[in-house]
C-alpha cells in the first residue's frame, strides 16, 4: 500500500506512527525518476538511524522561518486590505501620514514578498534540502541567526516605509540598512544550504533541488547587482524592472515550482510524468525568464530594441510553462480523487494550475497590443496576485500544512480550519483576480479612448474595486485563521514538548 492511498491518511495531512519519524528520501520520483517507495512503514530500521538526526536538524530552523513567515503574512495581509479599502473610500484614515496609501502600499508589498513568501520559502527549502540530500542539515546555527536578521530587516524596513523613508524604487523601497540585513540573512541561509548539499548522500539530484540550487546562486547576485550600481534616469528604470521581475524569476517562482515538483508526486505516490520535460522546462526557464524585465516599461522612453527583447523572451516563456504544466498536471489530473481528498494536494495543485494560468496571461500581457490597454491599470495588480498569491502562496500553504506536523511531531489540531482556509483563500483570490481583470481592462479601454475624460477611467473601476476588497477580505480572513491555527499547534508543542524522536521510533515498532 502506498502512503497516499492509506484511507486513514487522506493525502499527507495525518501522521501515521512511522511517519512521526519523517524519513529522508531521494525525492518523490526516486532515482532516475522511478518511484521510490513513499511508504515509510516499509523502511528498514537502519535507515531510520540515518533519518532521526537528519530530521531533528531541520525541525527548529524550519519552524523559526515559518513563525516569521506567518507573522508577516498577517501584517502584510492587513496592510494590503487597508490599501484596498482606500480605493473604495479615499478619506478612510486619511489624516494620518503613516496610514496614507502611498506608504501602506509599499509596506504591504515588501512585507508579503520579503516576509511571508521569502520566509515560508526558506523554511520549506531547509526541510526539503535535508530530505532530498538524505543528510542532516548543516550549520543550523547560521539558520537561526539568518531568521533573526531577516525578521529584524523586515521590521526595520516596514517601520521606515510607514515613517516615510522609502528609497523610492519599486520593490527596492527598504532603506539600505534594512536591505543589508536581509541580504546578510539570505547569505547565511544559502551557506547552510550549500554546505548541506555538499554533504549529500545521494547521487541523483531531484528536479526540486535544481530549482533550489539555481535560486540560491541567483538571488545573492541579483540583490547585490541591483543594490550596488547607482544608475540614474532611464537606465535606473531598466535596472529596477530587471530586478523586480527577476525577483520572481530567481526566487518566488523557483520556490513555488520546487514545492509543486516535490509535493504533487510525493502525495500521489507516482513519479513525475517526464524527466526530460523537467530538464527542458528548467533550462528554458533559466534562459528566457531572465530577459523579461523590460516588459514592465513597454511604450516608455527606453530603447525600443531592448523592450522588444523582453517581449520576445516573454513569449518564449510558453516553452518552459507548457513543459512544467504537462509534468504537474498530467500527474495530478490522473488522480483527481486524491486532489479532492488531500488538503495539502489541493493547495499545491491549485497553485500549480495558477502557475500555468498566470504565465500564459503574462506572456500575452507582455505584447504591445495588450500593453497599450492594460499597462497602467489594475489589470496588472490582478496579474500580480494570481502569481504571488494564487500560485506561490498557495503552494507554500500546502507545503506548510505538510511539513509543520513533521517538524513538531503532532497533527494539525483542526482539519476543519484547514478546509476553511482553503476555501476562503481560493474563493477570495479568484474574486480578487477576476474583478481586477475585468475592471482593469475597462479602465484601460476608457483611458485609451480619445475624448473620454480621465475620471471616467476612475469611475468605471468602482464596483470592481469593491469586489476586489471583498475578495481581499476573504483572503485576509483565511490568512488570519491559518495564523491562529499555526499559533495553536506551536503553543501546544511548546507546552507539551516535542515528542522525543526515539520514543516515537519505539512506538512505531522500530519499523
Amino acid at each position, binding site marked *: 500500500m502506498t502512503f497516499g492511498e492509506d484511507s486513514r491518511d487522506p493525502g499527507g495531512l495525518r501522521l501515521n506512527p512511522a511517519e512521526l519519524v519523517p524519513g529522508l528520501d531521494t525525492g518523490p520520483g526516486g532515482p532516475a525518476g522511478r518511484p521510490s517507495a513513499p511508504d515509510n512503514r516499509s523502511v528498514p530500521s537502519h535507515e531510520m538511524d540515518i533519518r532521526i538526526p537528519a530530521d531533528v536538524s531541520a525541525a527548529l530552523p524550519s519552524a523559526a522561518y515559518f513563525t516569521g513567515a506567518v507573522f508577516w503574512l498577517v501584517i502584510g495581509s492587513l496592510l494590503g486590505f487597508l490599501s484596498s479599502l482606500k480605493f473604495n473610500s479615499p478619506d478612510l484614515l486619511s489624516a494620518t501620514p503613516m496610514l496614507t496609501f502611498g506608504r501602506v502600499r509599499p509596506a504591504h508589498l515588501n512585507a508579503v514578498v520579503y516576509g511571508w513568501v521569502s520566509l515560508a520559502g526558506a523554511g520549506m527549502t531547509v526541510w526539503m534540502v535535508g530530505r532530498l540530500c538524505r543528510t542532516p542539515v548543516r550549520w543550523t546555527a547560521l539558520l537561526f541567526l539568518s531568521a533573526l536578521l531577516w525578521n529584524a530587516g523586515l521590521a526595520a524596513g516596514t517601520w521606515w516605509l510607514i515613517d516615510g523613508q*522609502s528609497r523610492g*524604487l519599486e520593490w527596492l523601497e527598504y532603506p539600505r540598512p534594512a536591505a543589508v540585513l536581509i541580504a546578510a540573512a539570505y547569505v547565511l541561509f544559502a551557506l547552510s544550504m550549500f554546505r548541506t548539499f555538499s554533504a549529500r548522500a545521494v547521487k541523483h539530484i531531484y528536479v526540486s533541488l535544481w530549482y533550489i540550487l*539555481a535560486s540560491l546562486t541567483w538571488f545573492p547576485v541579483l540583490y547585490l547587482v541591483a543594490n550596488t550600481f547607482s544608475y540614474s*534616469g532611464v537606465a535606473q528604470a531598466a535596472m529596477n524592472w530587471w530586478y523586480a521581475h527577476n525577483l520572481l524569476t530567481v526566487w518566488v517562482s523557483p520556490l513555488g515550482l520546487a514545492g509543486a515538483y516535490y509535493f504533487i508526486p510525493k502525495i500521489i505516490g507516482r513519479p513525475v510524468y517526464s524527466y526530460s520535460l523537467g530538464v527542458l522546462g528548467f533550462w528554458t526557464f533559466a534562459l528566457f525568464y531572465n530577459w523579461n524585465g523590460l516588459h514592465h516599461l513597454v511604450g516608455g522612453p527606453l*530603447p525600443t530594441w531592448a523592450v522588444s527583447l523582453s517581449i520576445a523572451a516573454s513569449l518564449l516563456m510558453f516553452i518552459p510553462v507548457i513543459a512544467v504544466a504537462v509534468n504537474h498536471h498530467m500527474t495530478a489530473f490522473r488522480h483527481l480523487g486524491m486532489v479532492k481528498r488531500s488538503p495539502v494536494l489541493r493547495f499545491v495543485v491549485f497553485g500549480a494550475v495558477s502557475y500555468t494560468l498566470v504565465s500564459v496571461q503574462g506572456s500575452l500581457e507582455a505584447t504591445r497590443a495588450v500593453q497599450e490597454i492594460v499597462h497602467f491599470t489594475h489589470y496588472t495588480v490582478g496579474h500580480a496576485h494570481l502569481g504571488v498569491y494564487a500560485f506561490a502562496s498557495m503552494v507554500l500553504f500546502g507545503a506548510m500544512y505538510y511539513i509543520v506536523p513533521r517538524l513538531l511531531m503532532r497533527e494539525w489540531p483542526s482539519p476543519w480550519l484547514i478546509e476553511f482556509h482553503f476555501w476562503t483563500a481560493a474563493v477570495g483570490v479568484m474574486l480578487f483576480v477576476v474583478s481586477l481583470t475585468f475592471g482593469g481592462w475597462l479602465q484601460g479601454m476608457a483611458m485609451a479612448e480619445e475624448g473620454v475624460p480621465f475620471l471616467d477611467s476612475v469611475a468605471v473601476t468602482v464596483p470592481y474595486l469593491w469586489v476586489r476588497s471583498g475578495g481581499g477580505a476573504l483572503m485576509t480572513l483565511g490568512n488570519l485563521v491559518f495564523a491562529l491555527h499555526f499559533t495553536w499547534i506551536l503553543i501546544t508543542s511548546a507546552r507539551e514538548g516535542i515528542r522525543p524522536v526515539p520514543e516515537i521510533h519505539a512506538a512505531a515498532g522500530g519499523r
Partner: protein
Amino acid sequence: MSFVRLVLFFLGVLAALLLGWWAIVGLPESMLAKVAAPSGLKPYTQEQAAGRETYIREGCVYCHSQQPRPEGFGADQSRFWGRPSIAADYVYDTPHLLGTMRSGPDLFNVSVRRPDSVWHYEHLHDPRHLVPGSIMPRFPWLFDEGTSAPAPEGRVLVAYLLSLDHTYPITPHDTVESSP
C-alpha cells in the same frame, strides 16, 4: 550528478542570469550613459529637489506615472499629457519616477495644464473638494493645522509639481540612444 556536470550546472545558471542583465540592462545603459541633458532641461533647484523627496515619501508614484506615450499608443497625446518622453528628459532623475500605475493622470508635464500653485494647494489639501469623484488621498499634514496655509513640505512639493514641464523642444541629437 558528476562533479563536472555540477560545475556546468552552476556556470550555466549564473550565465543565464548575467546574460539577461547584459542584454536588458548593461547594453542599454552603456548607450544611455552618453545621453546629455537637452538644452531646455534645467537641474532641480534645492526647493524642487526637496519637493521631489516629499513626492517619494508620500508614494505619489504608486498612482501617477511620468512617461507620456507616443501617438498611436494609448490616448496620452489627445489628453495633452505632453510629447512622448525620451531618455534625455530624465538625466537628473534619481531615483527614477517613471511609475507603472495610472490610477491618476500622468504628471510628467502637469504644470503645463495646472500652472496655478493655489489649485495644487487646494487639491492636495482635499482633492474631492475640487474634483468630485477623485480617489486621490488628501494630504492635510502638508498644511498648517489651524490656518490651512501650506507648511514648508507642502510648499516644496508644489514647487516640484510646477517644475514638471518637459515640453521644451528636442533635437535629433537628444534622441541618439535609440539604436544599438
